[in-house]
Structures are given as C-alpha cells and as structure tokens.
C-alpha cells in the first residue's frame, strides 16, 4: 500500500541535512512499528521516496515522502503510529493513502510530481514600500536574474516563475497578485506558515516554479526582488519557510497530498 506523508521541520531541526532527515524517518518507522516494505538483499532498506530537499536553516510545514507498507492500514492508524514516534520538531502533519501503481505503468513518486512551491520569506528590515514594489513587479512582462547552477550561472526569467504574491502581517493576508494557477486558500496560507519564524510577524508569501523543469529557489527570488526594489545589500538577515509543495492536477497546481498518484 502506497502512502504519502507530509511533515514539518522547524526549531533546531532546521539544521538537519536531507540525509539526516531520511535516517531520522527510518528510525521513526521502527519506533512506530509501521510495517514498511523493504528492499531485497543483504542490506535491506525501507522503500521510501523523499520530495525536494530543503535548504539548511529553512523551516517548513510542507515536506513530503512516499512510503510503501506491507499491510493495509487506515490513514488514522498510520497517523497515530507516526505521531507517537516523531520528534516534536519534525512531526508528520498529513497522511494520504495513494492508489497502487498500475502494473507496468511508470512509477510516479512525490519527487517527480513537483511543479511548484510556496514560501513565506521574512526580513528583519522589510522595505517600507514593499506592497508597491510587489505590485509593480507583478505588472512586469519579464525580469531576468542570474541563477547559479551546477554548470555556472545562467539567466532566467524571475517574473515568469512567480505565480502569486501575498503579504502576511499579524495573521492577516493581503493578496497582491494571483495568476490563478494555484489552489491555495487564505486558511491554507495561515496553516502553511504555522511554524515559520517571522520578524515582526510579517512575511512575503510567494508561489514559485519548482521541480525538475523550471525551478526558482526561494533565495534567488528574494535576491531578485530586492535588487528590483533597488536594495543591494548581500544576504540581509532573513528567514525562509516552505509552506507546501505542489503538483499539477486538472490544469491547476495543488498541494502534493491532493494528488492521488
């Protein structure tokens, strides 16, 4: 049985690398006594697939992995098992049972489904004219920035990779721009920012292209928007929080847990 789990990562756990998180969950499954499917061979390991790694120091309420269980269980039972075995700073927060792969069909995992991500980004010194800057940015046709990749720096269109912009202030959301491609309510946003550490309780919320085809990292977005606003300071004090990861469903981008494949 295939199961997709969404989890959060915050507090001191934000300094755990991707491999440490994977090792952590392998031990969670044992403590939870979940009947995980194991690979064959002398060093069997549980069959697990993690979605996009999170950068060190980022917090998140929207991390994912897919696992396979040997026995049928209800979502409630799986959630209860995980809940008793998780560390409070890396808790699972949503469990979805997925339909089995059709025989011979290409195996789809959380990782390959990803086409978008949303972040809450907070700055110690938020520019005063931030709403205007964001409005103006949204009205641009394109805005080219440099992005460093494995093969050196490359130009990419930051504007084309931004699909929504909001400002979160003291628990109130002001939507600035929305191209309609994402399904994400105000309530989703508040939930998704639950474990973010924000300066002045204020953040910019952004929906960005993510995944293997087009990927705009959150720090590239921030650096781009700051230079667009005429701020040249390198790496000002800030926090990044991933709210959720998205994939395509019926022409919309929806959180991964809503995609049943």
């Amino acid at each position, binding site marked *: 049985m295939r199961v997709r789990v969404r989890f959060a990562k915050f507090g001191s*756990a934000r300094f755990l690398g991707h491999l440490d998180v994977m090792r952590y969950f392998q031990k969670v499954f044992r403590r939870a006594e979940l009947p995980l499917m194991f690979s064959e061979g002398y060093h069997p390991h549980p069959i697990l697939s993690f979605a996009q790694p999170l950068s060190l120091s980022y917090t998140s309420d929207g991390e994912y992995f897919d696992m396979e269980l040997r026995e049928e269980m209800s979502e409630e039972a799986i959630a209860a098992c*995980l*809940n008793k075995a998780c560390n409070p700073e890396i808790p699972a927060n949503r469990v979805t049972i997925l339909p089995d792969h059709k025989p011979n069909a290409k195996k789809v995992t959380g990782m390959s489904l990803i086409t978008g991500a949303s972040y809450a980004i907070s700055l110690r010194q938020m520019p005063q004219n931030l709403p205007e800057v964001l409005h103006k940015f949204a009205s641009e046709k394109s805005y080219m920035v440099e992005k460093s990749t494995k093969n050196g720096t490359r130009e990419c269109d930051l504007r084309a990779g931004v699909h929504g912009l909001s400002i979160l202030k003291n628990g109130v959301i002001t939507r600035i721009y929305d191209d309609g491609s994402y399904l994400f309510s105000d309530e989703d946003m508040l939930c998704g920012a639950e474990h973010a550490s924000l300066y002045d309780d204020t953040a910019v919320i952004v929906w960005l292209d993510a995944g293997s085809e087009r990927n705009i990292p959150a720090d590239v977005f921030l650096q781009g928007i700051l230079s667009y606003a005429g701020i040249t300071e390198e790496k000002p004090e800030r926090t990044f929080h991933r709210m959720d990861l998205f994939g395509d469903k019926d022409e919309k981008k929806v959180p991964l847990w809503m995609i049943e494949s």
Partner: protein
Amino acid sequence: MLDIINGKEFDCMRKPFLPDEVLLAVEKPARYTGGEVNMVVKDPDACDIRFCMCFPDVYEVGMSHLGIQILYDMFNRRPDTYCERVYSPWVDLDKIMREKKIPLFSLETQTPIKQFDFLGITLQYEMCYTNILQVLDLAGIPLHATERGEDDPIVVGGGPCSYNPEPIADFFDFFYIGEGETSYDDVLDLYKENKKQGGTRAEYLRKLSHIPGMYVPSLYDVTYNEDGTIKSFTPKYDDVPKTVQKLVVTDLSNTVYPEKPVVPFLQVIQDRVTLEIQRGCIRGCRFCQAGMIYRPIRERNVEWLKNMADKMLQSTGHEEITLSSLSSSDYSCLKDLVYYLIDNYKDQYVNVALPSLRIDAFSLDVMKKVQDVNKSSITFAPEAGTQRMRNVINKGLTVEDILGGAGKAFRGGWNKVKLYFMLGLPSERDEDAVGIAELAEQITEEYYQIPKEQRHGKVNVTVSTSYFIPKPFTPFQWARMATKDEFLSHQRLVKSSIQAQLNHKSISYQWHDSDTSVMEGIFARGDRKLCAVIEEAYRAGCIYDAWTEYFKFDVWKEIMDRHGITIDFYNTRERAKDEILPWDFIDIGVSKKFLWREYERSQRAEITPNCRRKCSGCGAAKFGCGVCVEPRDEFGTSLCYDGMDTGVNG
C-alpha cells in the same frame, strides 16, 4: 487524507544558541543544536542541580559512547537534577567561538556551561587532554581548579584515564574513581546539603573526599626526588584518606541502564543499540588495563539483557544492535542471547552486529546468519607473532587455535582474515616481528590446502600493528616502553618479512602512527609535572591530538624540552619495584603485589591461568562479587568455566 494534531509538550521553537550565520558557516551544524530523539526535557528552574556531561571530542565520537548515556539516564532519573550534554566544538567552530568570544553551551537547553553546577568530563583516552582545556577555556572556566570561584561549575573527571589522573590533576576539582552507577547520589546529595548550609566550594570538596572513590587532587601534596621520581604523596589533612578506593557495581543486573538512549540525527560512529553483557574480563592479558581495572568479571542476567534489548530497540528505532564486553565468548549465556536476538529481530530487518568472538562452530554459524560471507572478514588478535611472546603477554591464543579457526572459516566460505598485533612488547626480538609475517603466511597456506574448486577466489589477509604502550595498573606498569626508532625498525622488519613470504601478494599490512604512541605513553604513566606541559601545548594551539591530522608532535617536543620533560624518564625507563608510582594512591582491588608477580612471570614467559580456571589471588575478591564468588570444584575451577583456554579471537 488526515490531519495529525501534534499535542506534545515541548518547546517547539527551540532556539539555537549560535546565530544562523555561524551555524551556516560550520560543517554539520546539527552537532550543536541538540533536540535529538529521547533527549531529556526538563524545566531547569525546577531543578536544584544542573549537571553538564562532556565527552571532550567531536559530537560523532562522543555520542557513540555508552558510559555517558548510562550516566545521563541515571542523573535525569533524579527529579532534582537536570543533566545535559556538551562535546568539543570541531576546529571550524572553535575558531569562530574564539574570534567572536562566544561561550560554550549545552545541547539540551543551549545554556552557557558556566551556569552549570557541575561539568563532568569523561576521560576515555589520553590524547583528549588538550580538548579538556579547550572545553574549559571556551566555557570561560579557569583552567586551574585552584583559580575557580564559587560561581564556577565543579569540574569532575571519570572513566579509564582517571586511574592515573595526575597529568591532568590541576584542571579538575575532583575525580570519581570507579564505576559511575554506585556513588553519584552521595556526591549530588552532599552538594545540595552543602549549598543549603551556605558552604563554600572548598568545604564541599573537603567533605567529598570522605566519600570512597572521590579523589580531590588539591588536598594532596606531592614531593619529588632529585631524579624526578616521587618521594612522597600525602594528604594535606588528617581527615583526607591516604588511598582512594575504586567503586564497583556488585550486581550488574540490578543497576540503571538507559532504556531510552538519545538517538542522534547525525551519522555517528556507533549508530546502534549497545548492550553491555558483562563488565571485566577473566583473561588477564598483561598489557590490558581494562582487564585489570574492571576486575572482577561480572555478568548481567540473560533475561534482563533480552528485556533491555527489546526496550532499547523499541525506544530508539535503531536498525542494529551490538553486544559490548571485553571478551564476549566468555559470557556464559552467549548462545541463548545471540539466538534470541537473531530469531526475534531478523524479520524486522534489525542487524545483529557481533563483537569479536572466538572462532568456533557457534560463532561461524551465527556469522553466517547475520553477515554476507562474501563481504565479511574474520578477525584474530594474536597480539604477538611467536608463542614465547604470547606467553610473555599472557595471551592464550595458540597457532593451532588460529589456523584451526581460520581453516573452519575458509571451509565455511570466508576468504578474508584480519590480524591484530602489537609491536614493541617487553623483551621483543627480531624473530617476534618476523613471526608476524610467518603467521600471516601460514594462514594463507591453510587456505590453499582447500581443494581449488571449493575455494572462493583469492585469500586476503590484513595485518595491522599498533605500538605497545605500558599502562598503569597492569603488570607492565614498570616496563620500559620501546623508543620510536625501535618501533619503526620492527615495523620495517614486519614489512620486509611479509614481502619475503611466498604468498605476500595475499597479505596487506597497516601500521599506526608512532609519534602519537610516544605522547600517549608519556601521558599514560605521567605525573603532575605534565600539567604545565599540557597547558602550554594547548596555549600553543594543540587540540584534537587524537586526530592524526591535528597532532603536532614538534610543538609538544619543543615544550617538553623547555620543561625538562624527557621521553626517557616517562617511557623508556624501567621502573624499580619500590618506586612510588603516580597512581599508587588508588586501590583498584588488584594488588600491586599481584601485578609485580605477574611482571616477574612475564619475564619467565610463564602463563597465568584465567580467573575461571584457577584464582590467582589478585585481590579483587574483596569486592565479593562476580567470578570471585562463582562456585568451584575441588581443583578450584569455576563451575561456569567452559574449558576454553583461548579467550576471544580479538
């Protein structure tokens, strides 16, 4: 889909002590952020005593140590005490902390160490001594115990190196000599009482010295003869005991054990459940300090161990369990325990990691069940290359044992053998070094006696040598240690002798760094005069001496020269029978008389039977436990004895 409500009591936003830019600038920031599974969370304000436990090496090494987990668990069972942890910051963070004047802090509550009541430092190996100073210095605690004020933590040391605490005596308020499970309650209760009565630090330490096992170095005076040896070692006051009695747990099945050990996020060296099956050893190898200081051997009850294994695997989620002891083959219920673990956990994909066992039908059967025969190797630790030399060190392993064991393993499908030896043993001759190569060759020949069609490829023998370092409380505590040149010449002889063997292509050879061994030798049998050297080396930038890449022998040599400390005095000089040794004030139960007798027997290459075969009257019987109280037949042989004169293979 389903939402999980996380209703746990926990400060969900634990804030790291270090700012983000520091954490992002260092390798593996998770070394410093804590928050691991099974970490104990308490309200520090509701605790009378705050104890910080330290392993003075990097996190991944320190977190692999069972002793700290035992004490951490034990202290935290006390409602009035909160025990936290700290490890040596790695060199990258060390540098930043000095530059930015960031104080050292604990993992649990990320609190500066200076705010604690106690700082407990475990002393597992001599080469960590400068790291002790690193920890004190970064914490802002004066290095010298005598310079500490009422607000500084009480600094206590324990563990194997506390059996000769003299080279680091100046840096500790007191040492706890012996097994931690026995008397810490008294230590902490006395602290509380003293505090309540408004007593000073000095008053506390004075009263503490009355508790057996507690050594307060500042309460003793040492004088020296002109030749540098000790003239007298005396308490400053009449109420301070002349000798410090080692503390021993008499019933190991009725003591604390961490049912919920802390599970690190980072990949540490021992990333598994460790089950200590027994403490002590019956074998009496003459080079082995652990074999003497943990006497007498005491076993844990097998049902208790099974229960503990279940609980620890459940609470940690570790995918591996290992048994810990000095000589597992001597544990009387080993089969029962090992088959229990394999049968119960094989289906749950829990790996049973085997400690070095004597190679026999049982161990080969077990190894086949838990390891991939094609990949794993079998290990022997003959320690010396000839029978004479093995008799000198009282290592009962014979060539027949090794060849017989290897032959069985080869027929069982193995083709890799590891051999461990020491070089520089007392009375070592060239033939002993050559013997190492010849033994390796004999093993390869044993392999080629198997018909070709039954072999599994080529045989592969790995020979490793380390250098022998005489340790306190062993029969060799008086012995001369070989010089670096002697080490190197024998190491070269082993190498060339291996080259000369017919099957030399099947034999590979690895050896240890000799400079580190020289320094370790000086610390191991050192006295208080070394405190100044260690401090100066630390000031000159020496830390992480246990890590070859950071060990600066030239710096050490230069400082020793300046202090008139010679390698000859500490290492290459044979001690006289009546010399006062720096650690003589400690009573480990095993008598100096017995150790001297053993030293003499070693010079005649005479074997001494193990504790189960026949009691040799070492003195540990006074503790009234373990092998010393096992029932015996009319020849004095323990009824628990399995008749094997060979101990562990490794």
